[in-house]
């Protein structure tokens, strides 16, 4: 059984990075991880006996994130004051690749929480649909459906963004 301190030292960084993608605001992301680890700390004896401690804690993180969204006002959750958020990247200034990356992040951040969590777990955590289903407590089929919807939305919006950018450049 891994001790609580060892687990946090081993996995804490990864959890914070995951939270940054779920919560968007970096300070709130750290708050969220602290909150979830605090809840885990209270029940650590039991959690540390789980077959897959990491999946268990990630499930707590995702669930708690969704419940935070329910509880809090949008201003507390959704606003990211760090650089790059909301402002459209200027291709002339930072290059097409960076602009595309920022635009993609912007659009991912606007997805509904479960769709966003699905993409984050698939593309950042590199988990398969079964593992994502374990965390989101749904079937792999539902995971695929969520991912499909999210990707369709992203594709549509990225095309719109590109069209807008072309328009601006031609103006």
């Amino acid at each position, binding site marked *: 059984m891994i001790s609580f301190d060892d687990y946090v*030292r081993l996995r804490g960084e990864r959890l914070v990075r995951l939270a940054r993608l779920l919560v968007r605001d970096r300070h*709130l992301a*750290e708050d969220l991880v602290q909150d979830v680890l*605090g809840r*885990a*700390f209270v029940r650590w004896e039991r959690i540390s006996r789980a077959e897959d401690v990491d999946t268990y804690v990630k499930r707590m993180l995702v669930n708690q994130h969704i*419940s935070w969204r329910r509880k*809090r006002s949008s201003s507390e959750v959704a606003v990211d004051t760090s650089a790059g958020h909301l402002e459209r990247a200027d291709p002339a200034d930072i290059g097409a690749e960076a602009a595309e990356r*920022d635009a*993609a992040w912007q659009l991912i951040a606007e997805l509904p929480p479960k769709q966003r969590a699905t993409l984050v777990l698939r593309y950042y955590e590199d988990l398969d649909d079964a593992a994502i289903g374990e965390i989101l407590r749904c079937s792999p089929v539902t995971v695929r459906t969520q991912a499909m919807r999210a990707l369709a939305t992203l594709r549509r919006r990225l095309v719109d963004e590109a069209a807008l950018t072309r328009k601006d450049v031609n103006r």
Partner: protein
Amino acid sequence: MSDLDPIIATALRARADGDVRIDSLLEGARRSGARHRRNRRLAVSASAAVVVAVLLAAVVLLPRQFSGPPANTHTPTPATTASPTTVAPSPTPPERPRPPEVPGMRPLAGGGQLGEGRQLHLDTADPDVIETSWGSGEGEEMSVTRNPRTPYLYEHYEVAGRPTEGARDAMADADRAHREGTEHTDDLAVTGRPATLEWGPDWAALRWRPVDTAWLYAVVSFQEREPDATKAAERARGAVLEVAGFLRLDKVRQCAVEFHLTWSLSDTHLASCATTWTATGKVIMATAGFRLAGGSPFLITDTVATDPPHVNTTYDGKGLEYDPTNGATIWLDGHQYTFERRQSGLPEEPILHMLTSLERTAPTTDPLAR
């Protein structure tokens, strides 16, 4: 692999990047754990400040079952069917130390309001209590750690109340979101009022409205998982009815802290209070929750100092520990006072100024009183 895959993966990796301070995270997690353990959820809640509605003019009389202890002891037994079940209160609370009564305030049983005056309106007659935490602010909560007793074997339960059904359900749904297992629901009756039972493999919860001014949520944590569905349902029903039977709503008790601030930002007001008592009457933690004018919360918690001071800065000639992520701590007369910044975003100076202005006092319900 679609053409979008590399774009998404790159965007996420770039976004997640940045330093993570593990020591600070670990310390914050442990602090958060202690907070959860002692159930100061009310005080730590980051949701918007809510002043309990005082517009309910009519005095609502409590159902007779709650107006006083019954003559006979009633020990609920596990129900064997899913049919509605009723519960009667347990006998008079044992004479154990608890916060003093507040004279002149109406208890819930007499039409009082949850969170009124940031005082305590919930109590338990549980004879097996080891430690109880109370919190009062946006609503109220009571958390009980106890010696588990057969047949239900639970060592912890919480009862939380909100003045509206919507607020109660938002809080209950949030609580449930991190509980494990397939959830089930069933209808019950508690003191003649409809109630909803929910349960998982190692927990059970009850939503009901024992008096017109309070919507309650009680949740029980069992020591062991129960894999058998029928037994899990029986255990869940029996335990929540027992907890509901322990509940007392006929007194208002004082939530006090033993410190006051001689200096604070001009727009600071007291928003919540929490206190933790052992069954022998030792106060092991007390927290005052504050809000700034914009609603941003911060907390100051008084605990008996268990660790030696870790002073890393001074302010006004006084030594403190300042942590840029969480807040600051000062040590006085064997106690440690921790300032938790929470979502207030306060910078270092006012935090250190407020904390170094702290003085120990006799128990007070208003640590901002000059």
